[in-house]
């Protein structure tokens, strides 16, 4: 005869289906759950874009101002910058992976396509979300290579006798380079010895094709966000019928603000207002 208890005491037992894992499997794995995650991460990324754009507007203030801001982000924050970068990356990857996964599932949901299929009220923005998203991804990579890692294009002194020329010349002298040769963006330094973000941006946008890339991608970002923001608000169940037009307007307003702010910098460099 066994002496073991029929129901022995031990660690706490959760009823089936009530574990956090079961919760996630139910709510996060559903199409609605995944869509809510895409929307939430999207809105958080929009938050980042606003901060990014506002920070960059310091370009209009002075080299000192933006360089100081950049120094603060990169050095004063210490390890926090890596936390922020990690977070951003996680948001970006989640947003992208789930959106792609949903899209693939949606494709599988219609195995035989229609011979003809017309849409009635779907907007161009809505229909192109995937493609604008993919281009924005490529652009983000380019943007990081360009300004964060300085791997794409070096700075050279083109217009004589302005701030950028002074900075480039200074570096050439410091590094014993021949006049006219290019300098890596990251090597540009201001008088305080900080990385000269201001000069780097001016150098970047003076190149016509780079500006063109940025402008085109800003347009695509505008298109992406104009649907993304209002769709996210609806996905999160925040706006009903009465406020759908308001959400659409809000989407356009936010997307437009980001667009105008970012493009203003490119345009200002081009127009020679920022030099």
């Amino acid at each position, binding site marked *: 005869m066994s002496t073991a208890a029929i129901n022995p005491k031990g660690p706490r037992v959760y009823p089936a289906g009530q574990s956090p894992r079961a919760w996630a499997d139910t*709510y996060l794995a559903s*199409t609605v759950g995944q869509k809510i995650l895409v929307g939430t991460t999207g809105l958080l990324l929009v938050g980042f874009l606003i901060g990014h754009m506002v920070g960059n507007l310091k370009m209009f203030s002075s080299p000192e101002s933006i360089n100081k801001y950049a120094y603060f982000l990169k050095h004063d924050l210490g390890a926090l910058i890596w936390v922020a970068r990690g977070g951003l990356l996680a948001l970006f990857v989640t947003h992208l992976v789930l959106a792609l996964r949903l899209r693939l599932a949606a494709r599988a949901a219609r195995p035989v396509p*229609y011979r003809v299929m017309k849409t009635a009220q779907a*907007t161009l923005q809505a*229909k192109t979300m995937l493609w604008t998203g993919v281009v924005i991804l490529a652009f983000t990579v380019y943007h990081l290579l360009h300004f964060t890692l300085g791997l794409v294009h070096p700075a050279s002194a083109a217009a004589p006798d302005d701030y950028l020329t002074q900075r480039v010349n200074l570096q050439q002298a410091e590094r014993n380079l021949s006049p006219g040769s290019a300098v890596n963006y990251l090597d540009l330094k201001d008088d305080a010895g900080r990385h000269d973000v201001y000069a780097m941006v001016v150098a970047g946008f003076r190149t016509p094709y780079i500006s063109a890339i940025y402008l085109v991608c800003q347009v695509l970002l505008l298109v992406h966000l104009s649907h993304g923001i209002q769709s996210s608000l609806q996905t999160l169940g925040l706006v009903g019928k009465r406020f759908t037009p308001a959400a659409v307007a809000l989407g356009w307003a936010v997307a437009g603000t980001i667009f105008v702010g970012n493009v203003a910098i490119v345009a200002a460099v081009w127009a020679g207002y920022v030099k």
Partner: protein
Amino acid sequence: MKFTLHIWRQANRTAPGRMETHAIDGITGDMSFLEMIDLLNEKLLREGKEAIAFDHDCREGICGSCSMMIDGQAHGPERGAATCQLHMRSFADGADIIVEPWRVGAFPVIRDLSVDRGAFDRIIQSGGYVSVNTGGTPDGNALPVPKPHQERAMDAAECIGCGACAAACPNASAMLFVSAKVGHLGALPQGQAERSERAKNMVAAHDREGFGHCTFYGECEAACPKSISTEYITQLNSDYLASAAKAVVKG
């Protein structure tokens, strides 16, 4: 009027299908689209050929049987109408018209233009009801229902379950169908007890059937014979979030 019809023919669930072309003459603008197909079928039968299978019943836009993708639009070009309510005066004389079945993986083609919409029944079975048995219910006036709530419930309850939302959705999502039932019952006091569970279970059933996700294209709303608004999808999402939150807090 005369038309050239390009119609999908498919012998059964597994057979490969193909488009078949038929010229038809003697159509009047007062005829409904289905009456035109009737005429074509009579012609085929006189020639000893098999009639085109299509679902239809009430022919007044309420039973939800009819289901044709006409020229790339679910239920054809008329807004707020089912195929049976579409009259030939909506087409230009001499036009070529392409007719296909609903193409959604969850709605397998049974034959020609007829599809199996059992997925919708299974979604309702997963929770699209108020769990009350017959008898023992309180007086109808025991719980007042504010008129706006009743109107909101009714707007969604009008859904005829035809499947046009999923057929028209670029993602093949049936979220409008799900949200109409969740929205109908959720707007009434009688539906509150199961509101969270209903949203959770019906979305799960929707996903199990293999429908796609909603990205607010709004094509469902445009295709819906009852013009049910995508606001119900927003409401569904909000109920779903509430359900998820409740599950976190209350287990």
